[in-house]
């Protein structure tokens, strides 16, 4: 009986620990969501309470007045284009590195791995100079190309390790049927790799959506800003208008959170590999 009670006590301690920790994590997020619907006076006077009358105007104000809507559009364009290109070229390269035999394969694979570990800030100066020489600064492509380059490493790593697990007999059978290597990739191997490709797409979407450093350095004009950069500028102009500012934050945070609610397991597993990079 005593044992049972001590076990119950232990369970209780565990739950208290987990609940307190969860509150610490959730509080700032919920606080921001609650403030996004308040007036400044409410924020100062009653920081704990929920908004008495939700001020949805804050969202409209952030969206148009704060140009968050325009940033949202830019983020969507940059993310879609970067991810579309990664989704096409990464599985091609991954298959090539996993299955086909050619000279320099190992070296190229290690080179790609490097992109995961070298912190992007290391080459920030030369990257800006390169983009300037190519006349890309302040265009969507100033972000898209670097996002693809830095996103390829993880994508290829995930996809390659998936291709390696597929049985070789699949290709042998296709070869006997007279399919060319290109057709084998396109018709048989790529469709099989779709689950891994979805993981890559979701992960890269979140990384690109939230990227800030490149967006800070390679984009100059206000109407080209993506969301993280736009939020920073928004804070600069709206200094203490906390309602709209929090609305902007929620607008920026919502898409990745929605993706997370749908694909939480896939995202967690992929991120574990992905965030090991420098």
């Amino acid at each position: 009986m005593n044992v049972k009670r001590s076990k119950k006590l232990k369970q209780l301690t565990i739950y208290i620990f987990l609940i307190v920790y969860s509150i610490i994590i959730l509080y700032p997020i919920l606080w921001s969501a609650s403030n996004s619907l308040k007036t400044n006076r409410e924020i100062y006077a009653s920081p704990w309470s929920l908004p008495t009358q939700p001020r949805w105007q804050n969202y409209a104000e952030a969206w148009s007045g704060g140009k968050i809507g325009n940033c949202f559009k830019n983020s969507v364009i940059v993310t879609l284009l970067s991810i579309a290109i990664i989704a096409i070229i990464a599985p091609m390269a991954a298959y090539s590195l996993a299955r086909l035999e050619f000279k320099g394969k190992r070296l190229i694979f290690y080179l790609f791995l490097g992109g995961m570990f070298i912190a992007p800030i290391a080459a920030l100066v030369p990257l800006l100079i390169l983009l300037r020489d190519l006349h890309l600064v302040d265009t969507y492509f100033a972000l898209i190309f670097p996002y693809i380059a830095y996103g390829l490493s993880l994508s290829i790593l995930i996809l390659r390790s998936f291709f390696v697990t597929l049985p070789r007999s699949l290709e042998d059978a296709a070869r006997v049927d007279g399919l060319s290597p290109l057709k084998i990739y396109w018709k048989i191997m790529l469709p099989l790799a779709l689950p891994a490709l979805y993981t890559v797409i979701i992960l890269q979407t979140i990384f690109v959506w939230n990227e800030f450093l490149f967006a800070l350095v390679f984009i100059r004009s206000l109407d080209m800003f993506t969301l993280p950069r736009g939020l920073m500028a928004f804070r600069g102009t709206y200094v203490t208008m906390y309602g709209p500012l929090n609305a902007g934050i929620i607008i920026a945070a919502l898409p990745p959170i929605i993706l997370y609610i749908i694909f939480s397991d896939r995202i967690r597993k992929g991120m574990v590999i992905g965030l090991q990079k420098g």
Partner: protein
Amino acid sequence: MTFIPAKKIQFILKGKKTAYLLLLPALIIFVIFFVYPNAHVFYLSLFRWTGISPQKFFIGFENYRRLLFKDTIWIKAVINTAIIAIQSIGIQIPVALALAIVLNKKIRGAGIFTSIIFLPLLISLVAIAMVWTWMYDPSFGIINKVLEKLGLTILAREWLGDMSTALFSVIVTINWIYIGLYVVILMAGLKSIPKSIFDAARVDGLSELQTACRITIPLLKEVIAVVIIMCITGSFKSFDLIWIMTYAGPAHATEVVSTHLYRMGFRRLEAGYASAIGVIIFFICLITIVIQLRIMRIKIAK
């Protein structure tokens, strides 16, 4: 001698061509926008250059000499970066390990708790930095309000504006974000330990803490080593958060290696000097890859 049919030879040749063809688009973009800039940074680090003017002055290793001996802010940045890395190892890993062990126990709601703990990693660091800046705000921030409620008004202060508390405050936010990542990684490690080992420990009457110290931690040695390395490389990723929360201030109190590089390269227009900092970051990252690949025994590369 084995007989290789002509058709098969033809296929192999075709396969080789296909291999290069499939690899080419990714390789071209990667070489231009990753390999080339990371090589160019070494060259640029040997010059005094604004990054704009057409003239570059070759000065050899002068930029590195300046980093080593003349730049006191750089020294401060290195120390702060090291503090962030060391405290991450000392605080994030034990907390993450405790959470991972608890969440691994098949308790009800473990999935929901794991999801919540991981949530900060999904959100833009700019958004997180803004919210935390307000949490620390002396007039309406929640942190001072809580301290007042607890009767600790004496501790309330302008957390980010105070030189003595700014770095500490930023570190709290960093821990709030990254513990969730390490929980998930350590949980993956725990899942690979056979349950029978824990059952045996229970039969032998080991306490929870004894089990953790004598069994769990030794068995997770490799995973923990990887996590430690992540804490070190992670300290170079703190740019977004620190730049938004404090602009590396007040008076360089929260200066780290990455903010110093940014300020030198893009505010002070010392592109050559910033490149030298880039080279140092490059090498630190390179060393950590080598160690990490050693630990993982190059599992991924076959």
